């Protein structure tokens, strides 16, 4: 018999033997595809579909069913992969089945390939059938288009790849183990392992290293995570939840990180190859044992026991009273270690009497754990004090935390329910700022690393403590991140910080508009002035001129000016897509401006250019239109819970309404618009946050519906004399 004929016969046999497997997959996808589709179509036809705010069935099919639903289908594919792998290869765990299959004239390669292909078909055929049926239903509803077809094909490709990745991983688990229960356990562990270890490592570093910072950014050659994310769960997160807007495809509905696809494909090939090698090398007598390879048992135990012990340590540290955290942590580590080690031995031996087997490995693991605990607790490797030598450095990213905390928006959400969130300011800066040749940068890093300041809370001596994030981009391609605390009351520190801020690379790197704006085509300008607001149409000429002018003046702004000057406005530039999202959300999602570029009084050319285009930052309120100005006092209370822990709460006390025109004018001269005032307040101590001021106009003027803060030390005397304030003080 030719191998080819036998191969197809083996596939046929395998499908016959476990025909229940494709049936279950078929039913699962039937519910996910047709049933869900018909339910949604019904709701769209009834106009009761609110989740995605869909216009019609075509939009649903195009953007949701064959778009954002890809994640749900991928999760189902993972479950299907688990089912196919375990049902197809669990015969390896049965001696009687092995005696049959391995005595037959079919070698292991043929059997593996036949079962592998059979498993793939058992998933793919039901899945593809449902996709075709749904396309048929869509066509029947006149909701079929080229885009629908393209999206369906793309989705089939992505979901199939996810299936193959998970299938390879599950096969590895099944071939590595000799018992069905252990192999199920193994699948779960391998599925989540790298994600759990990533979170655990991050938590341990956060707990023990004050300078640790997690940077979640991708692109510009930066790794956004220091761990090898090999488990399917980690890969799926990377595939479907990219952290950087640039990694998204243009289509905001059918989101996946195309850059990640090759990683998934490579991992799938590697896992399948490993599974094949394990299958080939696996001895038949391994059936019934917990682990099929003696060498793997020790490795697996160490890989499981150490994280389990450290996790237990963190858990007990978390629930411990404040004073005994170290003791509780140590208890948790020892308890977790002993429990995990004993449990694993029992599981591997399938016998409770095996609990204390392998004493040598127990001691070895205990020693490894002790080393990890000591390294973490006492920073033996100098994590906190590490600063690379100047010669190792390619460039350095710095983020003066709180100072002009602006960052670009990124789209988020499903279907039409798209909104904009913002990339973390620090993350953005770690990817964009590339300082070179400025000695103050590394001087500040070395000073901060040496001083090892830590912010403890409401300590008066620490009121000038500020955080500074460093991203060391080394010549060897590595990126190392640290977050230091510096004392701005220290003149030398302040001078170093000023040097960094005044560096043009820092300024452009921290401003999304100046670093990315040249490549974009903006459609709208939203401006907020001292009192007014504006909404301008952008033209390419206006955009170029504005960026050029603003950059010129912004680069001349020095650190001391920032610390003691009140900005007079800010503006944001919106692309067409961002503007459409704003319209959909009636500006609600972008009410708080986290990407507004501040306008200082020194930016005379920018102010003039904006005025020329219809936005006067100094435009005053029409005093005649003001009905009254309301003032609220935010009373800070220090409270204690039953266990003596203090926390701050706020009472919003009505101070009163100002009707007198003269007082109104005096008051308005001393306020700063909160739309950009928050940026100032975060860093410079020139804004008073105790009061909240709002203007009530006679004509319901929208532009005036804003909140204002008082400038520090410039609160009009009559405010203190108002009855509401007096009461609040009581």
């Amino acid at each position, binding site marked *: 018999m030719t191998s080819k004929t036998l191969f197809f016969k083996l596939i046929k046999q395998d499908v016959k033997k476990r025909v229940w497997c494709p049936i279950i997959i078929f039913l699962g996808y039937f519910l996910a595809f047709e049933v869900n589709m018909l339910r949604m179509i019904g709701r769209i036809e009834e106009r009761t579909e609110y989740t995605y705010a869909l216009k019609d069935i075509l939009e649903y099919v195009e953007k949701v069913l064959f778009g954002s639903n890809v994640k749900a289908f991928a999760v189902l594919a993972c479950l299907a992969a688990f089912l196919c792998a375990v049902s197809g290869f669990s015969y390896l765990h049965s001696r009687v089945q092995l*005696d049959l299959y391995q005595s037959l004239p079919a070698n292991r390669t043929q059997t593996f390939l036949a079962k592998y292909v059979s498993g793939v078909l058992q998933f793919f055929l039901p899945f593809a059938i449902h996709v075709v049926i749904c396309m048929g239903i869509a066509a029947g509803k006149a909701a079929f288009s080229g885009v629908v077809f393209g999206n369906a094909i793309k989705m089939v490709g992505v979901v199939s790849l996810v299936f193959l990745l998970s299938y390879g991983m599950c096969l590895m688990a099944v071939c590595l183990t000799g018992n069905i229960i252990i192999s199920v356990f193994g699948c779960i562990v391998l599925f989540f392992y790298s994600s759990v270890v990533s979170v655990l490592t991050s938590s341990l570093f956060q707990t023990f290293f004050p300078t640790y910072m997690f940077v979640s950014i991708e692109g510009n050659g930066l790794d956004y995570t220091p761990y090898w994310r090999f488990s399917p769960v980690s890969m799926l997160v990377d595939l479907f939840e990219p952290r950087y807007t640039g990694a998204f495809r243009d289509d905001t509905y059918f989101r996946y990180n195309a850059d990640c696809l090759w990683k998934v494909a490579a991992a799938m090939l590697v896992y399948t190859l490993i599974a094949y090698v394990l299958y080939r090398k696996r001895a*038949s007598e391994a059936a019934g044992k917990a682990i099929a390879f003696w060498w793997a048992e020790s490795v697996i135990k160490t890989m499981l026991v150490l994280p389990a012990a450290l996790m237990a340590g963190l858990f007990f540290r978390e629930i411990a009273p404040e004073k005994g955290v170290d003791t509780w942590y140590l208890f948790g580590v020892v308890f977790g270690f002993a429990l995990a080690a004993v449990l694993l031995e029992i599981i591997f031996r399938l016998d409770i009497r095996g609990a204390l087997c392998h004493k040598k490995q127990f001691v070895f693991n205990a020693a490894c754990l002790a080393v990890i605990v000591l390294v973490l607790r006492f920073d033996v490797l100098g994590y906190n004090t590490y600063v690379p030598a100047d010669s190792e450095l390619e460039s350095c990213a710095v983020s003066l935390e709180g100072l002009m905390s602006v960052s670009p928006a990124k789209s988020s959400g499903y279907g039409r329910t798209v909104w904009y969130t913002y990339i973390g300011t620090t993350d953005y800066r770690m990817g964009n700022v590339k300082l070179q040749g400025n000695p103050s940068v590394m001087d500040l890093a070395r000073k901060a690393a040496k001083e090892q300041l830590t912010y403890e809370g409401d300590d008066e001596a620490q009121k000038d403590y500020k955080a500074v994030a460093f991203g060391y981009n080394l010549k060897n391609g590595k990126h190392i991140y640290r977050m230091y605390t510096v004392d701005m009351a220290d003149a030398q520190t302040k001078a170093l910080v000023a040097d960094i801020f005044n560096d043009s690379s820092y300024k452009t790197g921290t401003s999304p508009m100046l670093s990315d704006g040249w490549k974009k085509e903006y459609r709208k300008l939203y401006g907020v002035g001292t009192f007014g607001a504006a909404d301008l149409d952008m033209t390419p000429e206006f955009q170029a001129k504005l960026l050029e002018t603003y950059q010129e003046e912004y680069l001349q702004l020095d650190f001391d000016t920032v610390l003691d000057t009140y900005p007079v406005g800010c503006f944001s530039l919106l692309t067409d897509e961002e503007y459409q999202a704003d319209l959909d959300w009636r500006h609600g999602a972008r009410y708080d401006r986290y990407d507004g570029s501040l306008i200082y009084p020194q930016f005379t050319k920018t102010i003039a250019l904006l005025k020329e285009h219809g936005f006067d930052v100094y435009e005053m309120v029409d005093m005649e239109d003001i009905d009254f100005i309301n003032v609220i006092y935010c009373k800070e209370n220090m409270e204690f819970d039953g266990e003596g822990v203090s926390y701050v709460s706020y009472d919003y006390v009505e101070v009163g309404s100002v009707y007198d025109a003269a007082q109104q004018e005096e008051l308005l001269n001393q306020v700063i618009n909160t739309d950009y005032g928050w940026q100032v307040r975060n860093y410079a101590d020139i804004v008073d946050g105790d009061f909240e001021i709002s203007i009530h106009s006679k004509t319901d003027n929208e532009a005036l519906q804003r909140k204002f803060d008082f400038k520090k030390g410039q609160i009009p005397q009559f405010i203190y004399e108002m009855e509401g304030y007096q009461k609040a003080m009581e």
Partner: protein
Amino acid sequence: MITATHISKKFDKTQAVKDVSVSIKNGEVFGLIGTNGAGKSTFLRMACGVLKPDSGEILVDEQKVYENNTAKAEIFYISDDQYFLPNATPIDMADFYKDYYVKFDMARFRDLLGKFQLEGRRKVTTFSKGMKKQLSVLLGVCANTKYMFCDETFDGLDPMMRQAVKSIFAGELAERDFTPVIASHNLRELEDICDSVGILHQGGVLMQKDLEEMKLNIHNIQCVFHTPEDEAAALEGLEVVNAEKRGSLNTLTVRGKIEEIMAGINLHNPVFAENISLTLEEIFISETEVAGYDIKNLIF
């Protein structure tokens, strides 16, 4: 021909088969005997390619078996706990084997099913243990392989079925190149089936003999002599394996050809001398006692 040369197999710390060398000629029914744990199943599993020997090699028709489809295509293995596909009927199982064994004779299988009164469309799970064993043998016979390895397949079969299977084997042996290898822990089960036998004990081969040759070369003689001098002289010329005396009656287990033994005894004018047939059991007891083993403890 199956040749095992110094094969050993260890499971963790247990030595299952140790330095076993066996040679099984084509066209004979070979019995592999040993107590539980003697290594019979391990030997068969290595011989049919399920297990890989740690050392030594097993050749079937001068080819290694492990991962060799050509060699395996001539082997049908019936394990001590044969696996049948879930919800399968005998016909389903035949279809299954047909995919692997190109010479599988479906018509004959249906015919034999009828003769053995096994229903072709009944689920195997509803069969008794004996019926499953019959089915396995029928599947093996119809696969038309040169070698058939049966691990304790005949233990517990009723005498009629044993006879039926035996006749099938006889037919196969007469018609084609067929070599069944039958493992059992009970010598009596194999007595009327096997041509030659190998005894495994504690992982090693104790002995391997042709049954006919053994039967022809060892005899049980009962004799009475007139005088003790005659008796001594007669016994002196014989290769006595075992001797027992009750009164004047000598019961001797003697090695050699029967004609020569009787001629030697008759020379000394016995009162009577008679050849009483030995059972296979008795032959083995005699043979292995010579080797220094108490075989009764090993296989009965």
